[in-house]
């Protein structure tokens, strides 16, 4: 083993968001990936680069974590305003919209969903991640509408799984978006899904790997190691794993430790619990880290900037 490991691979790049010049309406386009070394090590990239931070919002907050609803108040009922605040007040790099209304199976409302996506696109200038249908029966309709609503904006669409990837791949191909490919904490299944997506025609520079992230204390270590292994394998030359990684630990804010915390401590416990899965994910190499508590954004950004800084006084840029 040498001082510097010999790497033969490079993580592929994926572009997210389209500005007017690229045919969209976003204020910025991010380029994620491109690493040539382990996360935050000197060989990784020419300049210190921190991961992007996405704030998650939803169009139907009934099942959304109570600590977030407490924090955002009325915003929870106004998806567009919520998205605007994510950018203006909380300083997120990306907004990740979960169409949780698709949980209500009785009332699939593709037109309403399309309007929601359009209103969020109008409310924020940030690149968007859209989490479409949560019911396989609605996939085809929902992803078609989402894809169409965001045509030209280079959305990141979620979430493709091994037995559920055709609709989302179709939307990406038809309307020029990228896709999140999720596998259940298993490097080989991640690889397999990437191959399936490639075979259906999704180019590699449109795939972002989601290895699935368990909450801290609830299997997080498995996710952490899978992220490390994906980066390691990719750098060792496995091109089927050489895509950027997105990490979200959706259960962070509803674990027992948060629910049972004393009311006075609950917000701090929630923030800290979310941080302790999000920040380690960044250390493991996630290129996009998602959080749900709006106050987590700054906390995480400061920490990631400090990590990306080799010396004092060299500010790190998100994405780019």
């Amino acid at each position, binding site marked *: *083993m040498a001082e510097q490991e010999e790497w033969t691979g490079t993580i592929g790049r994926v572009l997210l968001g389209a500005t007017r010049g690229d045919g969209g309406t976003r204020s910025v386009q991010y380029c994620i990936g491109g690493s040539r070394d382990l996360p935050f090590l*000197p060989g990784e990239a020419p300049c210190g680069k921190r991961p992007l931070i996405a704030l998650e919002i939803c169009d139907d907050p009934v099942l959304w974590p109570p600590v977030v609803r407490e924090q955002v108040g009325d915003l929870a009922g106004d998806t567009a305003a919520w998205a605007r605040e994510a950018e203006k007040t909380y300083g997120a790099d990306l907004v990740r919209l979960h169409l949780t209304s698709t949980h209500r199976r009785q009332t699939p409302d593709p037109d309403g969903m399309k309007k929601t996506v359009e209103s969020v696109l109008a409310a924020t200038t940030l690149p968007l991640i859209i989490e479409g249908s949560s019911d396989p029966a609605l996939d085809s309709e929902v992803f078609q509408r989402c894809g169409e609503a965001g045509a030209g904006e280079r959305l990141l669409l979620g979430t493709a799984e091994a037995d559920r990837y055709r609709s989302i791949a179709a939307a990406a191909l038809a309307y020029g978006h990228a896709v999140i490919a999720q596998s259940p904490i298993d490097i080989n299944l991640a690889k397999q899904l990437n191959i399936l997506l490639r075979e259906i025609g999704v180019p590699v520079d449109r795939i972002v790997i989601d290895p699935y992230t368990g909450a801290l204390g609830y299997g997080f270590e*498995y996710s952490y190691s899978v992220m*490390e292994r994906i980066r390691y394998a990719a750098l060792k030359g496995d091109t089927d794993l050489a895509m950027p990684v997105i990490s979200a630990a959706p259960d962070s804010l509803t674990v027992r430790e948060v629910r049972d*915390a004393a009311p006075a401590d609950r917000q701090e416990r929630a923030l800290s619990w979310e*941080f302790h899965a999000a920040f380690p994910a960044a250390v493991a190499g996630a290129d996009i880290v998602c959080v749900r508590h709006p106050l987590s954004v700054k906390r995480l950004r400061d920490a990631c900037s400090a*990590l990306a800084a080799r010396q*004092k006084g060299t500010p790190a840029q998100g994405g780019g």
Partner: protein
Amino acid sequence: MALKALDIYKLLPKKNCKECGFPTCLTFAMKLASGKADAETCPYLDEATKQLLKGATRPPILRVKIGVGERSFAVGEEIVLFRHDKSFVHPPGILFLVSDRQTTDEIRRVATRVKDEVFPRVGELLRVNGIAIRNDSGSPEAFGKAVRVVEETAEFPEMLIAGSPASMEAALAECGNYRPLIHAATAENHGAMCSLAKRYGAPLAVRARGADALRNLAGTCAAAGVQDLVLDPFPETLGEFLITSTLIRRLALARSAPELGYPVYLDATAPGLEEAALSLGILKYAAVMVTTPRNPASLLPSLTLRQNIYTDPQKPIQMTPGIYRVGNPTRGDPLLLTVNFSLTYFTLLGYLESSRISCFLLLVDTEGFSVLTAVASGKLNENMIRDSLQRFGVEAETGHRTLVLPGYAAPLSGRVEEATGWKVLVGPRDAAEVPEFLEQSWKKAPGG
């Protein structure tokens, strides 16, 4: 490069005399290869071979023990760069920082917290390991006094932070025999600090910025006869710590720089970034860390992360087998069988709790295997299920004889019914579907 068991075997006397405590030379060789035996215990090796074997089987990162007694902790002996390659070995010690400028009461309050505060989690007790006392006053007397206050409160590992050997000497006079970690030998004071460390047989942290400077200073201190060293790379930013500690770990594991084969220290008190620093240290090779006495609301997550990361990936945390209650189950509520693999248990628990279902969980001992692997390997079978039902007196709790098996255990259902005489329902494979399954099927089930 470490030697393989057979290479070592070739160097052994092959007498199978058992004097080393192992039944055969081959077993001894395998233990040596995995660092679980000492070449010294073989009476028939010549000195040259012994040294060769010791060099080849010496842990690439030396073990350093801090403190004495029950709360003492060991660090070092790590063997991998990534936990997935084998496992991380010794969880880093986390110490609360106090200053000798604080009042006696304040110091005592922190020390009492370190003594008493525990967080039970997944069958383990999570706690902070000890206390670090910093000589902010510059006065040896004040430093000594602060250490005394800590000493009076309880016995747990201490770390002494002072730049001046005189202050350090005053503190060591109070606690020097209890293996406190001395912080720190620097380019300026290493002679005096080494003498103190040797006099008390205490571990010594050496502080120098960057791997090269550390290598020189650690080499000097080792040559001066201090055996137990800890390396403080003295980083300016979190990023610098990550880079330096990774380099140190790499060089140490490659055995290409024995002077760096020691545990690493991180001062995690960076303002505003303390939980980030603690997380990074846990993830990336810190063995001893100092933090301010953090609010339990954010301390528990740090301790939980440490517990997660230092779990052996090949030996998942096991739950104690038995009956677990979810919500407030009463007689007649559903009984679900699952395995004692903690990830399975917690995943299932999460879904059950969030759907507010009251039920009984019977955790059977599959040695931490998941349902699928336990079924495949035969660890989960009808006889052990029958025995578990009896051993834990399940029927007395549930008041019925209907058992829900996990979906992946479906092939066992018939045999379980026959072996136990209980009615068996087969649940879904995915824990997420369990609440709906119970909603749909339990009410219909006889006995349910």
